[in-house]
């Protein structure tokens, strides 16, 4: 079997299924974003968001429990929250934690691993996701905003255009403006989503998985291999556990690397991050998260090896 074999039929099937799966969540994300723009006053964020950075980051890591967003819809919400005054470090913490630290991902992980190992994997995934997100938040808090965000990342033409309508502040006018804003944003994000999904579909259908099988013999190669696999497959965080659980030849710690790294970094997300973040920041974020995920999984492997999971 060749390592790479492309079929237009299979590529189309995989690509479209990724789009059909993601579009509802993209719609939801942009709708929430539009509503945040119109209904969440900046002064509310200034008044109620925790003032102490460390506490604000810890809280942001848990926001996914109240406002769960999968990775497809997170970028528009993130941009809007930053525009409303949420600090960049807190917004990035929320962006990384939300696809993992939420009830749906927790339950799906538990179900995928079933029986006695299900809760261990689900709790470990949630804890690792939270730890990595807040660690990233603390690092980002020390970096200047100018080194993270693209110059016009928070400029929103379509929201700004409505300023001259501000005298009309009834909820109906706000709703209409919110929908208008959501529609523009949906189209903007959809372009990145389509290109990213196309890359994922190529990997999904054309690359022979036997290529990564030799990696299973060693913890480091298995873990890095699955992290790369997660980044290329672009699976949704609510269903990726079912794929990971079926990779039985890989150690459980490598499964966790797949489940934690994938929702934070993948080719589709990297393209969407490009809307907001500078290229250099994305490179450092990817490297940092890869190293962090590896170290946490290595630690987990040492704590649990020879224990209940092997």
């Amino acid at each position, binding site marked *: *079997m060749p390592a790479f*074999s492309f*079929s*237009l*039929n*299979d590529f*189309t*099937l*995989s*690509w*479209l*299924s*990724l*789009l*059909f*799966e993601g*579009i*509802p969540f993209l*719609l939801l994300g942009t709708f929430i974003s539009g509503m945040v723009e119109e209904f969440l006053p900046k002064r509310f964020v200034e008044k109620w968001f925790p003032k102490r950075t460390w506490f604000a980051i810890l809280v942001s890591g848990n926001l996914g429990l109240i406002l769960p967003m999968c990775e497809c819809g997170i970028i528009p919400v993130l941009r809007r929250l930053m525009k409303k005054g949420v600090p960049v470090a807190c917004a990035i913490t929320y962006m990384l934690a939300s696809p993992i630290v939420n009830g749906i991902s927790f339950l799906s992980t538990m*179900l*995928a*691993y*079933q029986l006695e190992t299900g809760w261990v994997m689900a709790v470990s995934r949630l804890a690792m996701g939270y730890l990595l997100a807040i660690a990233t938040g603390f690092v980002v808090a020390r970096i200047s905003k100018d080194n993270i965000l693209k110059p016009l990342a928070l400029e929103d*033409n*379509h929201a700004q*255009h*409505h300023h*001259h*309508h501000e005298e009309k502040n009834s909820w109906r006018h706000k709703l*209409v*403006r919110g*929908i*208008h804003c959501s*529609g*523009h944003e949906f*189209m903007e994000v*959809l*372009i990145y989503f*389509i*290109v990213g999904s196309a890359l*994922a*579909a190529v990997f*999904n*259908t*054309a*690359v*022979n*998985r*036997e290529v990564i099988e030799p990696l299973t013999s060693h913890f480091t190669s298995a873990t890095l291999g699955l992290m790369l696999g997660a980044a290329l*497959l672009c*699976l*949704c965080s*609510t*269903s990726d*556990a*079912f*794929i990971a*659980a*079926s990779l*039985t030849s890989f150690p459980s710690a490598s499964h966790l690397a797949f489940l934690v790294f994938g929702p934070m970094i993948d080719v589709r997300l990297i393209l969407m991050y490009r809307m907001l973040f500078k290229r250099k920041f994305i490179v450092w974020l990817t490297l940092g998260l890869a190293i962090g995920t590896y170290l946490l999984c290595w630690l987990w492997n040492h704590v649990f090896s020879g224990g209940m999971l092997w």
Partner: protein
Amino acid sequence: MVKRWFILNWIPLAFCCWGLLHLLFFWGKGFTIYLSPWFRWIALAAGIVLVLLALLWPFLPTNDCEETECHSHHHHRKTFWQFGIIIFPVLLCLWVRPSEFSVTTLQNRGVSSELLPGMDTISTEELFTEPNFDFAEDLSSGQLSEISVSDLLFIADDPELREKFQSKTIKVVGQPIFSSASRFQLTRLFIMCCAADARPVGFWVESESEVPVSLQKKNWLEVEGKLEFKSETNRFVPWIQASQVKETQAPEEIFLY
């Protein structure tokens, strides 16, 4: 004039194309090959929202900047590119019209011969009491039973069922992956959400005679033969000694859920 109209209306046009595609696929059963049954309802909701947005968009307030943007050449080019990228998948799926994954993709994904997490098989009790699976009666009377690939894996996993089904003649339908003229894997794809997460499950079939080349190229085969179980590193996997292999229609739902 047309250009100006397009610049002002490409967004509802794109909403309309994607929304209608969603609705068309939901009612035309096009989603069968893309999404699991429960997810099709979410896609339908998205389709309705997209069509509503397309209909409402002309009545939403436009702004001065949108009007002035119409006159910028840079904006023209950017808008055509955006629209092209957004509409390309719609055109591609209508042109290619995929109906199932090819054997190459099944091979690329690697066939699993054990029960996968999340796979919804029938329970042991149901297997013998459900009217559709009245195997106890069939087996004792020596009649032929049609079993799904996933239920076969379930049977192989259960010592009691293994004993009951050992050497019984059964009938199974699946997609074949041939390794030689008389040996192939019979597979089905199992999905959780969408076709992108599909994983092939299956088992080996050894035919008593060589399968004709014309049949080897078919996408779906019905295999009839004696069911056996092989021990493989702490577990049992099913295999079939096939007495008859023939072409069959693809099932209505090509995936297992």
